[in-house]
């Protein structure tokens, strides 16, 4: 039967775009949950490193803590400071949240799972849209109309802008090797070369690591909301759900930054040593790891005090085993072989992203905080020049390799050493400058009795 034309158009639209829509819905639904559990993991890790237990109250081992937090934030009254700019006060957290979520659109969580099906400017889209989050921070600081939040907003803007340059140049370094902006093509390039780009351009990876930490306002660079001086920077006046939006935006941004680093430097969804065929038993690793988690849950289930907690731990264990079976099926059933890359690719990708985020958290627990001028100094005087020199070095390495047919490894090694030499020069230039700037008069050891 003939449908009305508009319905026809919608049906055709759905027909050829349903994969993207499903992926999009999954991302928008799952990311807040994941962000919640990343917060829980962070609190548990911090507790573990500080000889304490972390949240244990809500659900067994605090597993339901994120849901409790979300509920609390929803119920809590979010007040608006008087004569604050109502419209922009509401808009700012939305901008920072939307920026983080849309930039996830272009990220390929696995060879099949990608919302924007391989757009021509893949990585650039992710970086560009995630830099919009900056607007959310400025407007948030401005709209809350309090002295401290404006200073916090100005500081975090200056930090983000300068470290975005460093991150962009570090990414240029890796893109030279990949030769394309398309995310899928970058990972394929790493597969053909058979090596992850982190080994060819280690300096670019570390510059990007430092810049991405600063870009998400975390760890030693979390100055804008340094508790001790600005109380909470631009987020001071926010509470309740609006604050949760900012918080979600920050964690989503962390996942985005992690996935960009994984795609560019850690070989996206490639299994370690993808082309080495005698290492193919590594394909069995994903189901084994998930099964191990399930076994640990069973082991912990026995120790839970309350009845309900035992049931809950059993439920978690069973889901782990089910997922492990799903991962194992394509390995054995040859007819389902084609699922293997998509499924395992997503697992490896998420494993690497979580490793990257673990590094973020680790730094947060151990390192003290930079002062603002040191932070800007590190950004402008050391990271950006180093990133420029690194791009130069990679260009030279590629030319050496293609024109003078040097061995690729040798060229990469030589140029990396050259860049490290420049880095050492920059760092001691920085130390000499700070030492000279404030050398105090050395006090002779005086014995008061002598006087």
């Amino acid at each position, binding site marked *: 039967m003939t449908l009305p034309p508009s319905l026809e158009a919608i049906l055709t639209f759905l027909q050829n775009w349903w994969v993207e829509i499903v992926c999009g819905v999954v991302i928008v639904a799952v990311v807040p949950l994941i962000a919640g559990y990343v917060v829980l993991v962070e609190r548990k890790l*911090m507790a573990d*490193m*500080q*000889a*304490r237990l972390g949240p244990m109250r809500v659900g067994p081992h605090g597993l339901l803590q994120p849901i409790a937090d979300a509920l609390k934030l929803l119920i809590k009254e979010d007040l608006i400071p008087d004569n604050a700019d109502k419209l922009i006060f509401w808009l700012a957290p939305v901008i920072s949240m939307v920026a983080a979520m849309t930039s996830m659109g272009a990220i390929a969580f696995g060879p099949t799972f990608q919302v924007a099906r391989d757009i021509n400017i893949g990585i650039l889209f992710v970086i560009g849209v995630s830099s919009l989050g900056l607007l959310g921070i400025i407007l948030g600081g401005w709209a809350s109309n309090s*002295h401290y939040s*404006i200073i916090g907003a*100005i500081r975090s803007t200056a930090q983000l802008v300068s470290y975005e340059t460093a991150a962009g140049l570090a990414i240029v370094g890796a893109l030279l090797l990949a030769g394309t902006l398309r995310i899928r093509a970058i990972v394929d390039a790493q597969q053909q070369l058979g090596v992850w780009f982190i080994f060819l351009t280690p300096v670019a990876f570390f510059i990007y690591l430092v810049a991405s930490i600063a870009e998400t306002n975390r760890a*030693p660079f*979390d*100055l804008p909301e*340094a*508790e*001790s*001086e600005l*109380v909470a920077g631009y987020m001071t006046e926010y509470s309740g759900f609006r604050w949760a939006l900012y918080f979600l935006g920050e964690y989503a941004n962390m996942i985005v930054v992690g996935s960009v680093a994984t795609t560019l430097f850690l070989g996206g969804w490639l299994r370690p040593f993808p082309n080495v065929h005698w290492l193919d038993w590594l394909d069995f690793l994903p189901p084994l790891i998930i099964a191990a988690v399930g076994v640990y849950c069973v082991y912990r289930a026995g120790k839970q005090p309350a009845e309900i907690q035992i049931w809950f731990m059993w439920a978690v264990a069973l889901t782990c085993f089910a997922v492990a079976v799903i991962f194992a099926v394509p390995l054995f059933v040859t007819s389902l072989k084609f699922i293997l890359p998509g499924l395992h690719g997503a697992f490896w990708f998420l494993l690497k992203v979580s490793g990257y985020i673990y590094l973020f958290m680790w730094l*947060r*627990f*151990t*390192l*003290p*905080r*930079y*002062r*603002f*001028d*040191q932070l800007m100094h590190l950004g402008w005087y050391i990271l950006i020049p180093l990133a420029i020199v690194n791009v130069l070095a990679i260009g030279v390495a590629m030319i050496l390799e293609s024109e003078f047919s040097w061995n690729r490894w040798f060229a990469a090694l030589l140029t990396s050493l050259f860049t490290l030499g420049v880095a050492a020069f920059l760092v001691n230039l920085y130390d000499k400058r*700070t030492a000279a700037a*404030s*050398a*105090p*008069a*050395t*006090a*002779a*050891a*005086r*014995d*008061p009795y002598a006087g």
Partner: protein
Amino acid sequence: MGNALQQEDTTKKNSTLLGADELVINMGPQHPSTHGVLRVKLKLDGERVRATECVIGYLHRGVEKIAEHRTYQQFAPYVDRMDYVAAVSNGLGYCETVEKLLSVEAPPRARVIRTILTELQRIASHLVWLGTHALDIGALTPLFYCFREREEILKIFEKYCGARLTTHAFRIGGLQYEAYDGFEKDVERFCKNFERRIQDYVDLLTGNSIWIGRTRNVGVLSAADCIALGASGPVLRASGVKWDLRKAQPYAAYEQYQFDIPTGTNGDTYDRYMVRMEEMRQSRLICLQAIEKIPEGPILGKVGKVLKPAAGEVYHSIEAPKGILGYYIVSDGTTQPYRVRIRPPSFVNLQALDKMVRGHLVADVVAIIGTLDIVLGEVDR
């Protein structure tokens, strides 16, 4: 917080951030990093601090006035409430001053146990300082390591005199309680694993370039300034002045033990950090030497129930963890002191804040308040 800021702001000709020539920012009294209820008014030029003004008195309880209506024994618990982080040292200072007034000598066993408890208290006080100081500068983990060690010490105090923080462990003339039988073993076990634990802090902080960046050449105080301002304790020693009452005017049983006095060179926050870390190691050595041989004998000297010291005055000072803690007591022959004047180290060291902070950034003010290791209970009395 901040209301004073509003009045000053509007009076300025143009208070836009751009042309902000003079900006007054209020830190405290409810600021997360002022170690209690201290209010610091910072006059800022952009980010640099031009001048500061400390507003204190939020924790003033009039301890010295109360002393005039308490007998000597009744006043002893008040002394613990002054520097609540190092209550045992306060008690030691007060008891020794009154003993000096009565010209009575505590028996040797009491003096050795007093030394051990005071040194343990010094370590506990420095641990609190290290934890909160690192937290202000952003390192989250040292706080929990320090409080884990301090918990061991507080357990020993609790076993000895029943209280953890405000212990009132000593009596005028000696001790109230005999050392419980596992005392030497506990102290030895603590000192044994404290050696490894200090290494945790050193690994975390000493070599850390961000820590050095935040503390080197911050809040510099030269030796001459220290002496002029009357600063004492680790603040004085970090500027190179080798002056410690435990060596200069030995009290309790300090003359029997060998320990050295750490001093710094250029009196900045990093040197104060190193001096206090070294002091913790030295205190540990003193405890180890002390528990080898605790002399036998009575723990309370010949002091009657009612103390009626002859009219007169006495001044006696000891080396508290924060600096020189002095007591000046005037007695008029009755059972109650006529006047008790206390010289708290934190109050005097706080005067150095203004000189140390000038020219620094707001982030450094927090680090400098931390390095002075002030406790407001002692500053306000």
